[in-house]
C-alpha cells in the first residue's frame, strides 16, 4: 500500500525528469536514450507497485507499435531532408516565433531524438513484459 501511494506521486516526477533530460539533450547531458530509459524505468516502477493488468488499463497501447512509430520518426526526419536537395540525415534548425512561448529555437534533430525515445521505451517495455508474462 505504501509503495502504491508513493508510486502515484513519484511516477510523475520521474517522467517529468525524463522529459526534462530529453529536451536538455542538445546543450546538456541527456537526450532521447536516457530519457526513454528513465520513462520505462517509471513504467517498471508502476509494474512493480501494481501489476501487468493495471499497466494495460492505464496505457492501452502495444509497446511493439511504439518501436515502429519511433523508427518511422527517425527515418522520416532523415528522409525529409531528401526533399530539399540535401544529403540524407541533414538537419535543419531555426528560430520560430510561437504565440505564447516567444522566440524558440527549433531543431529537427529533436524529432529524430523523439524517435530514439519511443524506440527505447518500446524495446524496454517489450522485454520486461515478455519476461514478466512468461509463466
Amino acid at each position, binding site marked *: 500500500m505504501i509503495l502504491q501511494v508513493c508510486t*502515484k506521486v513519484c*511516477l510523475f516526477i520521474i*517522467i517529468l*525528469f525524463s522529459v526534462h533530460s530529453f529536451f536538455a539533450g542538445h546543450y546538456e547531458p541527456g537526450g532521447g536514450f536516457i530519457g526513454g530509459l528513465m520513462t520505462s524505468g517509471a513504467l517498471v516502477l508502476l509494474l512493480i507497485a501494481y501489476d501487468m493488468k493495471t499497466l494495460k488499463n492505464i*496505457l492501452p497501447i502495444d509497446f511493439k507499435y511504439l518501436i515502429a512509430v519511433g523508427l518511422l520518426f527517425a527515418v522520416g526526419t532523415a528522409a525529409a531532408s531528401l526533399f530539399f536537395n540535401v544529403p540524407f540525415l541533414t538537419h535543419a534548425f531555426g528560430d520560430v516565433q510561437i504565440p*505564447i512561448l*516567444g522566440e524558440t529555437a527549433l531543431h529537427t534533430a529533436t524529432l529524430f531524438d523523439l524517435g530514439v525515445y519511443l524506440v527505447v521505451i518500446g524495446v524496454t517495455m517489450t522485454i520486461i513484459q515478455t519476461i514478466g508474462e512468461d509463466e
Partner: protein
Amino acid sequence: MAFQILLNLCMAIIWMLFKNSYQPMDFFVGYMTGLIIIFIFRRFFDSRFYIYRILAIVHLLLVFIREVLLSNIAVLKIVLAPKLDMKPGIFALPIGITKDWEIYILSCLITLTPGTLVMKVSNDQKTLYIHAMDIPDIEESINGIKNGFERLIRDVSR
C-alpha cells in the same frame, strides 16, 4: 480533482527547479508538460481528468450568463408592458441532485435568473419550491431550463 491540481502545480515547480530558471514562462511550460503527462496517465486516478471538470464549470458559467441576459430582457418586457396580465404562482420542482453544495448552486442560479425565485428547499432535500412570475406559459420552458442547469451541475460534480 484537488490531488491532480496539486500534483500538476508540484510538477511545474519541480520543472522550474530542473531548469534552474524561475521565470513565469518556465512555470507555464512545466505546467503544460505536467498536464500532458497527467493526461497520458489519466486512467491512473480515481476521478476523471480535471480539465474536463474545469471545462464543465466554464460551460455552466457561460450558460448562466446567457440565461441572465435573456431572462432580464424578458422581465423588462413584462415591466414595460401597458397591462399587467401575468399570473404569478408557486410550483414544486423535484430535483435529482443530493449534495448540499449542488442544491445551493442550483437554487442560487434559479434565483439569479429573474422571473423565478427559490422560496424553500424541502426538508428531505428532494424538492424546491419556486415562485414564478408568470406561470401559464413559462412553467414548461422553465422546467426545461432547470433541467439544463441541473444536468450541467451534475456534469461538474461527476
